[in-house]
């Protein structure tokens, strides 16, 4: 039981689900700061208000991100949580760890912090909860000695994250882990030294299943796709039918663009009408696969609802071959142009998607030096919204 009297928190132990309170009770035996954390949390439940102050100048030398300042406003009552800073640690691409790496991380955090973690935060980082200001630098030194670095926070490029891609998924249309690692290394300055109007997130998804939800969460989403036809194994399709799958109702009828036909002997796909939703491939993974000419679509502008409402990404580059180093270099140059335009015209705390909404996509494309293309759409399966300047000029001449 808790060393403090915490009747409301005790209620959370009674459900059939695992409770964070149970874990906190275990930790408090060796961590006085967790005793105070429980006390403050009980107060918050009783009073229905939070007691954390957020932000400030706390951090490690030279870095502007990776530490989120957290102070208690009940410092006299709960002195052990007077400082309870969060450290964001850059996760390995696709969250692969050795057991040894996890033990090392746990030992470092046991030594310097509360021992509480949030594996992983919504951006993907390893989140270490509860560190005093004086322990930040020693903790950072131990983490870097073990090969870890801080992730992003504040108005910077946030820690890039990716799905497991070619490491474990046959649908991956490009090597998400490689590109995530490459971007993390390339943009170290932008990751650690906040210089933007607000945050900027990259997420790398290997296919349109978008397992890292990049289309809804990343300012720039790189979603794997293909240009040619879906690969079909008709013998495997027949096996699905023999096995009892109702192909018409489970696959054909669920195709959003109605581009699949099934005649009892095999399926026929009109690939020009396919919108790459992945439904048929997910339903019959042994019979269907993405095409062979693989790459990615680059989308821009999504965000969760914080300052303004939620936004989904818009298509910026319909197809890029991410196995081609030259195309990757062109992409990095485009990203530089986007950041320059955003720096120049973005308002404080305005995400890229909000900037595009405010100035208009045509102005934005003009500003970053990208020609409009008909495939640029405001939402999946929507119509192109770009109008072409050349045509406008011709009309003006008339």
């Amino acid at each position, binding site marked *: 039981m808790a060393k403090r009297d915490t009747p409301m928190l005790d209620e959370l132990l009674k459900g059939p689900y695992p409770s964070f309170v149970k874990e906190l009770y275990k930790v408090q035996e060796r961590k006085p700061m967790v005793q105070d954390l429980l006390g403050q949390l009980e107060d918050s439940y009783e009073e229905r208000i939070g007691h954390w*102050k957020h*932000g*400030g*100048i*706390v*951090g490690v*030398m*030279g*870095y*502007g*991100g990776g530490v*989120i*300042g957290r*102070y208690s406003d009940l*410092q006299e009552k709960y002195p052990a949580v*007077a*400082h309870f800073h969060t450290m964001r640690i850059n996760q390995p691409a696709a969250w692969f760890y050795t057991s040894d790496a996890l033990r090392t991380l746990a030992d470092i955090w046991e030594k310097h912090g509360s021992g509480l973690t949030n594996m992983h935060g919504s951006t993907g980082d390893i989140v270490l909860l509860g560190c005093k*200001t004086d322990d930040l630098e020693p903790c950072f030194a131990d983490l870097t000695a073990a090969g870890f670095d801080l992730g992003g*926070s*504040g*108005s*910077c490029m946030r820690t890039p994250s990716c799905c497991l891609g070619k490491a474990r998924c046959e649908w991956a249309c490009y090597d998400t882990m490689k590109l995530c690692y490459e971007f993390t290394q390339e943009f170290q*300055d932008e990751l650690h*030294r*906040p*210089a*933007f*109007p*607000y945050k900027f997130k990259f997420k790398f998804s290997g296919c349109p299943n978008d397992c890292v939800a990049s289309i809804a969460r990343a300012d720039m989403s790189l979603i794997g796709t293909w240009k040619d036809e879906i690969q079909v194994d008709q013998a495997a399709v027949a096996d699905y039918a023999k096995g009892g799958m109702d192909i018409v109702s489970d696959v054909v009828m669920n195709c959003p663009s109605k581009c699949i036909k099934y005649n009892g002997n095999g399926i026929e796909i009109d690939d020009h009408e396919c919108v790459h939703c992945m439904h048929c491939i997910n339903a019959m993974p042994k019979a269907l696969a993405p095409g062979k000419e693989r790459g990615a679509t680059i989308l821009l502008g999504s965000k969760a609802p914080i300052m303004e409402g939620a936004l989904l990404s818009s298509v910026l580059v319909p197809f890029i071959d991410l196995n081609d180093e030259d195309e990757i270099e062109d992409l990095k140059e485009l990203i530089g142009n986007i950041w*320059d335009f955003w*720096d*120049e015209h*973005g308002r*404080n*705390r305005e995400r890229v998607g909000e900037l595009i909404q405010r100035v208009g996509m045509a102005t934005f494309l003009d500003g970053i030096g990208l020609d409009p293309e008909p495939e640029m759409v405001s939402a999946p399966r929507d119509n192109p919204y770009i109008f072409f300047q050349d045509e406008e000029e011709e009309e003006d001449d008339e």
Partner: protein
Amino acid sequence: MGTPSIPEIAEEMFQMVSESMGKKNLKAGDLTKAIRQKYPEVDRKTCKLALRELMDNGRCVYAYFGGSYIQLPHKEGAAND
């Protein structure tokens, strides 16, 4: 007026931060814009290096108040200790 060096740009940025302390929070972008307005030949990369110099030698620190700003090092008010 010649092109300023990185330490000279850093010094000008430091002065801007010093003068605005307690009045207005400045972002990295505000300092970069001000420098580039005064010295159009100075590019963003040079401004970035000047900012990095200010941070690495501890003359300035990053602060978070809903967004990231640049300030002079000071005792954290929220720490209250």
